[in-house]
């Protein structure tokens, strides 16, 4: 094929109505300059002969033919879209966790990770919730915002939270009957340091707002007379 233009040409033949162009075939021939191309090429339109193709390798017949024709599954080129973050959730929003170990805890939202999960932190010193991933569906976003400008969250991503892959040791006969030794998994020191670093500036901005620290330390619960569909969060 001839070299492609960097920008596709806007059509030189505007539509009068759909299906009817303004210029006739002969006018378009002139507009496109095909007469000039012909003149440059000595009266005939330039032809590019197809390049000689390298000889294709001889195809061997397959070793195995299935007894019945096997159907190939349809090609799936679908790329899942990144999870849409609710408009009410912005960095610094206080969220209420609705499920799991920390159900009812009020927690500060830091950022959305590439997997779509939300990165949140208690802060740990205030309510015991560490840097953690949480699904958007299990969260109520309140309208309370915390100033999060001093916090650096760039180093946290889904890989940070991946489980450690343990290598299974092969057991000899004698050891097989011993109870499997389970050492308690200690939290690595660098994770603790990360938590402290994130929480340091967060706690300062939280203490700047009266009662906010006690608010984050308390758990949310539905009390008598509270109607969730009428509550403003």
């Amino acid at each position, binding site marked *: 094929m001839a070299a492609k233009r960097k920008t596709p040409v806007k059509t030189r033949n505007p539509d009068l109505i759909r299906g009817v162009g303004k210029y006739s075939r002969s006018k378009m021939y002139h507009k496109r300059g095909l007469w000039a191309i012909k003149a440059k090429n000595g009266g005939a339109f330039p032809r590019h002969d197809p390049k000689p193709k390298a000889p294709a390798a001889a195809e061997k017949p397959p070793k195995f033919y299935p007894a019945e024709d096997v159907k190939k599954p349809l090609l799936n080129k679908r790329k899942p879209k990144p999870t849409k973050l609710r408009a009410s959730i912005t960095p610094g929003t206080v969220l209420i966790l609705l499920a799991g170990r920390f159900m009812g805890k009020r927690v500060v939202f830091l950022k959305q990770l590439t997997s779509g999960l939300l990165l949140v932190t208690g802060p740990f010193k205030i309510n015991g919730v560490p840097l953690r991933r949480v699904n958007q569906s299990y969260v109520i976003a*309140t309208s309370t915002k915390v100033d999060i400008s001093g916090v650096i969250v760039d180093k946290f991503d889904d890989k940070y939270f991946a489980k450690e892959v343990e290598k299974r040791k092969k057991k000899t006969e004698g050891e097989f009957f011993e109870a499997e030794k389970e050492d308690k998994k200690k939290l690595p020191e660098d994770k603790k340091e990360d938590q402290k670093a994130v929480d340091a500036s967060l706690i300062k901005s939280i203490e700047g707002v009266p*009662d906010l620290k*006690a*608010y984050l330390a308390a758990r*949310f619960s539905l009390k008598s007379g509270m109607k969730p569909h*009428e509550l*403003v969060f």
Partner: protein
Amino acid sequence: NSSILIPSPPLSSISNTITHKQTPKMPFKRYVEIGRVALVNYGKDYGKLVVIVDVVDQNRALVDAPDMVRGQMNFKRLTLTDITIDIPRVPKKKTLIEAMEKADVKNKWESSSWGRKLIVQKRRASLNDFDRFKLMLAKIKRSGVIKQELAKLKKENAS
């Protein structure tokens, strides 16, 4: 408590007429009349204060407010208030607004106990989760102070 105006007796006997305000003890205090301010208690305009500017028939009134298009409303959708304003029948919007300013409807309503209750209800409904927490702390603090005083008084009484 609402009722339609009693039609007045024929003009010839005006001097002997008993106007509705002079009749002996009537069970109704708030009457449907032109200029009566009412609260809408059902429908799209729920919670609005409107003025009755005309009566259509036994069940419906023509109703107007500064921020709505004048239209008819069933009396069942209205709750009469104590406030009336002085307007001619079906006034122009401008006249209506002037009359409402003159009678100071807004302030009268917001200082009445009914109006104040509605304002408090609205405020409570719009409280944030954080606001509700702060409210809880304030209630606990207040009751703590009250209990302290009570304990003091009890002690004085006992001794």
